[in-house]
């Protein structure tokens, strides 16, 4: 007992002594310790490192830096490279996507159905598993995998080479104005591939405040899963609203406009956050520009496939399969001969119309939270279901897409869709809650329910407001 008392006293004594010295040494202890460590480091380095030969005649790193951050060359190079990446992704993903969809949706799905009939599965079971879970998963895989498998390796190559920090360096002045970090330019670009990956990529931002801004605004980058919706709807409604010879230009301009609108929203919301919610959070800036390193192409493709593509795909699949089941169930469980989906659609339809959409779209966005890729197939299935149109699709709860844009247009226009519905669907597709994979990633990265909820609801509230405004103005005119 006495011994422990003496022990305690001695420990206290040590702490007291330390405190006494802290007073004597003053506040700049940390500074002087680092200064002395660095002076040791410098001494040792001078002893062991020597430059051999003449100074290299030509410093490649300096030359590349001059080009990619130059006043005349910086921006063109940046736009060309990013445009190249996007072009390769969108055009290159088309064929493998069609191929995957032909295999997984046209053939395998068909054979699975036959096989289940052969084993005489009850209808509900084959519906639940094959039309629900399998089809949703297959859809996500065939739409999501090819663009990601192209986009991420390309992006990673630029990253490995050391170019991306220079982009952050070039664009920092824009982000500084809205209280964010230049590196947000990169997480935003990454978001054009996949928001979940963009959210994970915010790890490169080491200041917590700026990182939160980057996480919350990442959803305003129009991700791969949303491009097809935009292109389809723009082709039908925007292209259809102008003379034929302008259709192509008008619809692509509309898609680009939506993407740029997303970029401006990310700036506006960043500014808003840094003036309000994130005002007090700690802020610091440091950006290291690493030396250029020759990228290792094969290894990069391999690791980025494994690390980014497959992990994101896996998360999407985990969420898509249950969603498929739910989609099938709401379309097939009926009370008084009216399915759950119809009940919900009828109930929510007035609200949908109020914001220039309709009940089908809202239900589709509710049950297609796991992945934006299945929004269009779900909308088509639900439209057919609620309007009792025959001749399209293959039954309640079975998602489908139509072979031609004309057929889709015929179906949608005949279900009461107008130009306003098209415009607002494009807006809503940009401004709605992140997909569940992204929400999950946000939670994993922030470890905070509060910020996860804010990142989830901020865009959807914005989306509803904007759609409501557009619809009101539209109805007035």
């Amino acid at each position, binding site marked *: 007992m006495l011994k422990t008392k003496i022990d305690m006293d001695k420990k206290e004594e040590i702490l007291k002594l330390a405190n006494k010295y802290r007073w004597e040494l003053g506040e700049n202890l940390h500074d002087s310790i680092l200064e002395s460590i660095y002076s040791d480091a410098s001494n*040792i380095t001078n002893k062991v490192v020597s430059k051999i030969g003449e100074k290299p005649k030509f410093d490649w790193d300096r030359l590349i830096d001059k080009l990619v951050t130059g006043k005349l060359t910086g921006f063109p190079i940046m736009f060309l490279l990013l445009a190249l990446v996007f072009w390769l992704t969108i055009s290159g993903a088309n064929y493998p996507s069609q191929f995957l969809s032909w295999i997984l949706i046209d053939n395998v799905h068909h054979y699975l159905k036959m096989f289940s009939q052969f084993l005489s599965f009850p209808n509900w079971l084959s519906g639940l598993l094959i039309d629900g879970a399998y089809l949703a998963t297959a859809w996500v895989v065939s739409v999501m995998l090819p663009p990601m498998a192209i986009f991420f390796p390309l992006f990673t190559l630029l990253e490995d080479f050391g170019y991306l920090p220079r982009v952050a360096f070039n664009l920092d002045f824009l982000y500084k104005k809205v209280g964010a970090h230049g590196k947000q330019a990169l997480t935003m670009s990454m978001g054009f591939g996949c928001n979940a990956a963009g959210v994970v990529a915010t790890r490169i931002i080491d200041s917590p405040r700026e990182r939160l801004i980057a996480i919350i605004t990442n959803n305003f980058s129009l991700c791969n899963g949303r491009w097809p919706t935009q292109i389809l709807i723009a082709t039908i409604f925007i292209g259809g609203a102008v003379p034929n010879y302008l259709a192509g230009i008008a619809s692509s301009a509309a898609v680009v406009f939506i993407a740029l609108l997303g970029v401006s929203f990310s700036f506006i919301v960043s500014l808003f956050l840094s003036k309000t919610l994130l005002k007090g959070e700690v802020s610091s800036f440091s950006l290291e520009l690493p030396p250029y390193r020759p990228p290792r192409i094969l290894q990069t493709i391999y690791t980025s496939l494994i690390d980014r593509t497959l992990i994101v795909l896996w998360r999407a699949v985990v969420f898509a399969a249950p969603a498929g089941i739910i989609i099938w169930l709401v379309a097939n469980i009926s009370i008084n001969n009216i399915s759950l989906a119809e009940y919900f659609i009828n109930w929510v339809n007035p609200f949908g119309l109020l914001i220039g959409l309709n009940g089908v779209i809202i239900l589709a966005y509710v049950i297609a939270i796991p992945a934006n890729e299945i929004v269009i197939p779900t909308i088509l299935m639900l439209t057919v279901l609620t309007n009792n149109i025959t001749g399209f699709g293959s039954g309640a709860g079975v998602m489908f897409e139509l072979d031609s844009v004309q057929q889709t247009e015929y179906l949608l226009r005949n279900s009461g869709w107008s130009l306003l519905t098209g415009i607002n669907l494009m807006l809503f597709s940009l401004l709605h809650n992140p997909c569940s994979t992204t929400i999950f990633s946000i939670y994993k990265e922030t470890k905070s329910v509060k910020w996860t909820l804010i990142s989830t609801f901020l865009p959807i509230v914005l989306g509803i407001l904007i759609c409501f405004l557009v619809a009101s103005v539209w109805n007035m005119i």
Partner: protein
Amino acid sequence: MKANMKDINKNCETCPAHNLSNLVKLGVDMTHFDFVVALAGNPNVGKSTVFNSLTGLKQHTGNWPGKTVGRAEGAFQYNNKRYKIVDLPGTYSLLSTSVDEEIARDFILFGQPDVTVIVVDASRLERNLNLTLQVLEITDRVVLCLNLIDEAERHNLKIDDRLLSKELGIPVVKCSARQGLGIPDLLSSIHKVATKEFICKPYRMTNTSKKISNAIDDINKKLKEQFPNLANTRWIALRLLEGDQNIIDAIKSGEIGKLSFVENEN
């Protein structure tokens, strides 16, 4: 051991450069290990690449400061000893208050790894020595991995690794993990330090001002009286001067006395 080294070389005449016959990459199978190895280093020095070539895992690596967040673990087997390897978050320093640095600092101090491997960027040695010198204050079983040596050579830098090893008092291995060069040497150095075949005599800070070193010495003396088994009392003293609550708590609870490092007389 010398015979052993020869064997490695012999085997390697017939096998791909980095495919050591004595190295069994165990990935995440971390059962029954004999030694714990901590992997520390600045961000963006290829630490993850070194981790991957030792364990056979495929963590993503990129030319970005601060890729790995949190702690990754893996395992490998070398010379019939099983090693667990912990990849610490990349940090520039161990003296600050950020979460990453706390993880790295506390693991090296309280986790008591048998060997700490510091991966440095050979082309920017001076900057990287900051962390190295700090780690040497905490633990004396350290291997320095001079990674990206090919980059340094590309910039016409020549590094005298023997002199560096003498200066720092720890094994120094030239490496290019991306090309798998130097990994065999790194493994044998880790093995030597873990089995105490190589006794490190780590460099300790010399340039601190008189006022600071007096304070450290004084607290150091008191700490040694109270916790005779404690090896890195100088570091503990320094942390007390910085007001580190983890250390204060560990002293109050006496837990710090349990960290009985086997110190080498030097």
